[in-house]
């Protein structure tokens, strides 16, 4: 089975600089206040390079690529 990756935003670190949405508009758009809304689910292979660039170019290191795994139930 091939590895799958998804984008995860650290909401506390994110400052709404918006570079990620410029680099990867296929998966990231900005909300009314300039903060990224990420399309959920694994990143298709042909976009992985751009997704990595969005991660590397974030000025506040607020976005990461992480392996898709079965999420545990979270409490509030």
């Amino acid at each position, binding site marked *: 089975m091939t590895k799958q990756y998804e984008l995860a935003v*650290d*909401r*506390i670190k994110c*400052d709404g600089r918006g570079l990620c949405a410029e680099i990867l508009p296929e998966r990231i758009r900005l*909300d*009314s*206040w300039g*903060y990224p809304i990420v399309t959920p689910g694994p990143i298709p292979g042909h976009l992985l390079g751009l997704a990595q660039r969005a991660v590397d170019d974030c000025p506040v290191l607020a976005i990461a690529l992480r392996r898709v795994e079965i999420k545990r139930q979270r*409490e*509030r």
Partner: protein
Amino acid sequence: MSAPQLLAGPDPSRGSERRSEHVARLGPLPKGGHALIELLVRTGLTGRGGAGFPVGLKWRAVAAASHGSAVVIANGAEGEPHSRKDRLLMASRPHLILDGAMLAAASVHAKQVVLCIGEEHHAALRSMSGALAERSEHERRMVRIVAAPPRYVAGESSATVHLVDAGIATPTTTPPSPRDRGVGGAATLVQNVETLAHVAIIARTGMATDTVLITVAGGVRTPGVLEVNVGTPLGDAVQLAGGASEPVRAVLVGGYFGQWVEPSSAWSLPLDTQALRARGLSLGCGVIGLVPASRCAVCEVAGIMRYLASESSAQCGPCFFGLRALADACTRIAERGTDPGDLQRLQRWSAEVHGRGACKHPDGVVMFLQSAMKTFGDDFAHHPPHLRRSA
């Protein structure tokens, strides 16, 4: 209403129960451990802090991640504005809570117990520290008290960990969950004080408790805390609180992160976590709020929205800016009258904000607003201007 379990014994209004009285009434503290965790799983006890998570499962997870150095946080921050049940319990039955916390510590192999108590809950702070002074030296060394600031999010589980670690009661990014990495990096069990009191009873009887603490607030004759049987109809609880003081427009079930219900369907609702969940509702932290028909529902909702927006810890953009924008739109409708553009913006912004904070504060606020707009749909659609004449 059958016999109370948590508030059995002396009248809670008489204040903190002494240890001698507590032990004479309930007997010594049984042992915690694996068997207790399995008993809690079997009884199906769920957390009373608001999320209603199964207690036994949480303890199992913390015990598995503990390596003998876990931390237990007994959560008595009680930041929900109308809730009073945690501070009443802390002020009147401190040893029940300490028993539960010690049982938790033994069961998840914890070395430290932290009591997080709202800094404005003065009687609770006095009662808990007085009770701690009556415990064994071993327990006194294990347990410390940390005062939580009076903020809505201060009782969120990652915020209590942040408070204990750094003195800052704001939520942190999860994962990691406090269960895996909490205070000082150790596996941490965050459990509401009422939940721990239930554990202290369950450990002694070997059976499930069948009561729940609720706070009846708003338009009732004698607002306050009641211990009712699980499944008691909501209307019976309102009667126990003296009945409605005037005609009721709607009932807010479960506090500010709960749902609005029309009186016609509210009175028969069973006060039971599972039964309410099956109806798409939540008991939350047990607050039942009655809004009188004489009040303007839209203005009430706008006021609560302003409060909830101001309680954002201002860490995540969508929560800080989004909730403020939602509260402003509600306030515009309340003060200047309905504007179709604002109604559309409320819907669009709700969708944009939901699920986009480090904690669930924005989600809770959006669910509150959506429920309000459903229940008070006509009021929102045809609200007249309520312009104030003077500033």
